[in-house]
C-alpha cells in the first residue's frame, strides 16, 4: 500500500491558480460573473425544454429559494445543520492537530498512527455511518461522530506532515541555543508547520460538510437533510433543488473564504510544497 493514497496532489489542486496569479482582480471577477450567468442561462433553458419532468428551470428554483428564506424553513434548517458541523469540526481540529503533531514528533506514534489515518482517508468511511446510528441513536452525537470520522484523518495527516517537514536546521539551532523541547515545539515547529496545518483545516472543513450532509441524508433527517428528503417526498422539486444548491454553495463559499485567509496569512505560493 502506498502512503500516497493520502496525497497532496489533492491539496495542490486547491487553491486554484487564480488566487495567486491573477493579474487584475477586476477582470477575474468579470469572468466569474459571466460564468455564473452562463450557467444559470443553461439551467433555465434546460429546465424549460424540459429535459426531464423533475428538472425545474432556474427561475423556479430561485423563487422556491426565496419562499423558503421568507418562511424561515431554510435558515432554521441551516442552523440545525451547522450545529453538528461546527462541533464536529472543532473536535476534529483539536484532536487532529494534537494527534498529528504527536505523530510528527515521535516515531512510534507515527508508525502506529499514520497507516490507520491513511486507510481512513482512502476508505469509504460512509459505510460506517448507519452503524453509528444504531449504536448512538439518531441525535446530535451520531452526527457529530459522522463529521469527526470524515474530518479527522485529513487534519491529522496534514499536521503530521507539516511537523515532519519542519526545518531540521532551525530545530538544531534552537537546541544549540539551549532551547527546551517545549520551546522548540512552540517557537519553531508550530510556526513553521502552521501553513500546512491550516490547509488541513480547510480540507477538514470541506470533509465536515460532506459528513454532515451524508449524516442527515442517512440518519434521521433533521436540518438540511430533512428539507431535502421532505420536499422530494412531496415532489416539490424546485424546493429540493434550492436547498441542495444552498448547501453546496455554502460549502463552496466557506472553503473559498478559508482559501483567501490561507493565502493572505501564509502566502502558500511562497512556501515549498511537501511533495
Amino acid at each position, binding site marked *: 500500500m502506498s502512503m500516497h493514497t493520502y496525497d497532496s496532489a489533492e491539496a495542490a489542486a486547491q487553491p486554484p491558480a487564480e488566487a495567486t496569479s491573477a493579474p487584475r482582480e477586476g477582470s477575474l471577477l468579470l469572468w466569474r460573473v459571466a460564468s455564473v450567468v452562463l450557467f444559470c442561462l443553461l439551467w433555465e433553458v434546460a429546465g424549460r425544454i424540459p429535459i426531464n419532468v423533475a428538472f425545474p428551470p432556474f427561475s423556479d428554483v430561485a423563487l422556491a429559494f426565496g419562499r423558503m428564506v421568507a418562511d424561515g424553513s431554510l435558515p432554521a434548517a441551516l442552523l440545525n445543520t451547522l450545529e453538528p458541523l461546527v462541533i464536529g469540526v472543532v473536535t476534529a481540529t483539536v484532536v487532529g492537530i494534537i494527534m498529528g503533531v504527536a505523530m510528527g514528533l515521535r516515531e512510534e506514534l507515527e508508525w502506529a498512527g499514520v497507516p490507520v489515518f491513511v486507510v481512513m482517508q482512502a476508505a469509504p468511511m460512509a459505510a460506517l*455511518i448507519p452503524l453509528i446510528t444504531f449504536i448512538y441513536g439518531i441525535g446530535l452525537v451520531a452526527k457529530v461522530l459522522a463529521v469527526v470520522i470524515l474530518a479527522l484523518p485529513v487534519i491529522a495527516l496534514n499536521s503530521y506532515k507539516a511537523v515532519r517537514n519542519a526545518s531540521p536546521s532551525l530545530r538544531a539551532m534552537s537546541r544549540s541555543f539551549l532551547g527546551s523541547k517545549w520551546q522548540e515545539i512552540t517557537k519553531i515547529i508550530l510556526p513553521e508547520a502552521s501553513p500546512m496545518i491550516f490547509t488541513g483545516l480547510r480540507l477538514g472543513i470541506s470533509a465536515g460538510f460532506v459528513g454532515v450532509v*451524508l449524516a442527515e441524508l442517512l440518519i434521521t433527517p433533521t436540518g438540511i437533510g430533512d428539507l431535502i428528503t421532505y420536499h422530494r417526498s412531496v415532489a416539490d422539486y424546485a424546493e429540493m433543488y434550492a436547498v441542495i444548491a444552498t448547501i*453546496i454553495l455554502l460549502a463552496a463559499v466557506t472553503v473559498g473564504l478559508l482559501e483567501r485567509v490561507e493565502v493572505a496569512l501564509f502566502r502558500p505560493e511562497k512556501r515549498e510544497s511537501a511533495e
Partner: protein
Amino acid sequence: MTIAGYRIPPLASLLFWALIWEIVGRLHLVFLFPPFSHVVAELGQVLTSSTFRGAALLTLESFFAGLAIAILLGVPLGLLMGMSRTADRLLGMWVNLFVSAPLSALVPVIMILFGMGQATIIVTVTMFAVWIIALDTRAGVRDVPASLIIMARSFGATRRQTLVKIVLMAALPEILAGIRLGVIRGVKGVVIGQLLVSIIGLGELFELYSRNFLMEEFWALTLIIFAFALGAAELVSVLERRIDFYAGARH
C-alpha cells in the same frame, strides 16, 4: 520505526492494530467490536452469500462503468482547461467548486432523474470522480515545459501531434495521480450511492447486518470494501511508479 535495532515497516502497524482489535474483542469490552479473528472467519461466509455476490457485481459494474465515463469526460475537460484560457476562466470556478463540495447532496437529484437502480449508482460514481480527474489533468497540462512544445513546433509538428506526443505524455504523471484520487472518490461514490438508494446492493446488505447487529458480518463486509478501495488505488499507484522515472525529470 526500529525496535532493538530491527526496522519495522509501517504496514506492520496495521497488524498491531488487528492484534489490539483481537484483544478488545475477546475481552468483550465494546460490543461493537467482536474479536478480529471472528471477523476474518466470517469473511468466507459473507463472500459466498448470494446477496453479497449480487451486491458485489452491482458495485464492480457500476464502479468501473462510472470511472470509465469519469476518465472519458474528465481528461478532455482538463486538457481543455489547461490549454484554453477562456475555457479555464469559464469552467475553472465550477470544477473547483465541485471538487470540494458535499456531492452526496446531489444524489437525491440523481435519484429522481435516473431512478432507483444501477443507472443512479453509475452516475454517482462518475460525479464523485470526474472533478479531481479534470483538475489534476489541467495541472499537468499547465506544467508541460514550454521548451518541449517549441521544440516540437520547430520540427514541424501539427497541433494533434503536439497534443498526443508531447502534452499528454508530459502531463501523464498528473493525469494518473488524478485518476488514482478519482478511484478513491469513485469507491466512496459507489458506496454512498448504494447507501442512499438503500434498497439495492451494498446498502441493502449494510442495512441487514446493522439492523440485526450482526457485527462480525458487518465488519467483514467493511473490510472487504476497504480492501477494494485500497487495492484499486494501489493498482493505479503501480502504473504511476512505472512512469515515475521521468516525472521528476521534466524540469
